[in-house]
């Protein structure tokens, strides 16, 4: 009986332990920050990118106004947008999280841009990132690095 319990506990830890670690949620004020992830970069890359989903459970809109990390010289909020088949990337200013709604930073849209990488982002590694909200204040999160070109699917799979 005891053996079974230990085995079961071990199985549970193996099966759900890593998933729990992946599905990191962070809270600050009314904001819940879900599963921050970045893309691995090539060895000589000067830039990197991170994505995150932010949910606002409050009754007032908030705005993500800045991000900072020591993995790059400069960290900014950027957006990619398509106009007549031409892909453009530009600084995004602030990103609004509507009351009771969410903001999704994901490939091809809003993203956190790292310029002047101190070292390339390597798959399987992680790094700390600080997100600054206009109302909720700031929160430190840990960003998991997935493979380059990832769309975050493997992260979401782990998070479920």
């Amino acid at each position, binding site marked *: 009986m005891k053996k079974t319990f230990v085995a079961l506990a071990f199985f549970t830890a193996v099966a759900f332990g890593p998933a729990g670690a992946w599905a990191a949620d962070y809270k600050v004020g009314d904001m819940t920050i879900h599963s921050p992830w970045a*893309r*691995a*970069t*090539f*060895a*000589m*890359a*000067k*830039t*990197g*990118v991170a994505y995150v989903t932010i949910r606002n459970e409050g009754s007032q809109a908030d705005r993500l106004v800045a991000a900072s990390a020591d993995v790059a010289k*400069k960290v900014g909020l*950027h957006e*990619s947008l*398509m106009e007549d*088949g*031409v*892909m*453009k*990337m*530009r*600084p995004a200013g602030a990103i609004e999280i509507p009351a009771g709604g969410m903001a999704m930073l994901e*490939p*091809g849209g809003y*993203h956190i*841009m*790292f*310029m*002047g990488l101190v070292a390339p982002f390597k798959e399987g590694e992680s790094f700390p990132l600080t997100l600054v909200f206009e109302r909720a204040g700031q929160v430190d999160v840990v960003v998991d690095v997935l493979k*380059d*070109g*990832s*769309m975050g699917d493997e992260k979401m799979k782990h998070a479920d």
Partner: protein
Amino acid sequence: MPRRIVILALLVVAVISGALVLNFARPVRDLPSVSSSISIGGAFTLVDHDGRTVTDADYRGRYTLIFFGYTYCPDVCPTTMQNISDAMDLLGASADQVQPLFVSVDPERDTAEVLKSFVGNFHPRMIGLTGSAEQLAAVAKAYKVYFQKVQEEGAADDEYLMNHSSIVYLMDPDGEFVAHFTHGTTSDDMAAGIRKHL
């Protein structure tokens, strides 16, 4: 009302109506929807990721998948690069007939060394190309590709961004246009789109 103005007004109306009629009468196949009637592709001279000067003739005999971008772009370009790589994997043995080419429109930062590091991160058969401003202008013109350097206010000189066409072209072994894939085409759809031409 002076007669001259009336005549002028009538003329304007006539021209506009004429233009409208012609526009509606134009057969659908002439619309600029990247049909085969539009010439895409042609001769180019560029430098590959090993620093060798190459021309379009070097890639004859195989289909080419050609995409324009820049390595300083961490969001959109890697998505397309990954889709191309996954499509190559999905093609299995048929992938031998296809040569993926990534043309950097940012030769200032994308040296051969940087290009090699970038393309090697995606698919072992991917070749990175770039060239002088003149060479890039010529290939962009041939492929109807647009690109422009954007220097944001307050950004350092080497932190500029590029606007660029996001289309992926499939060219046949003679260098003739076959098909195109818009940004966001999944690797499954891309592989299927390539396979039907092989």
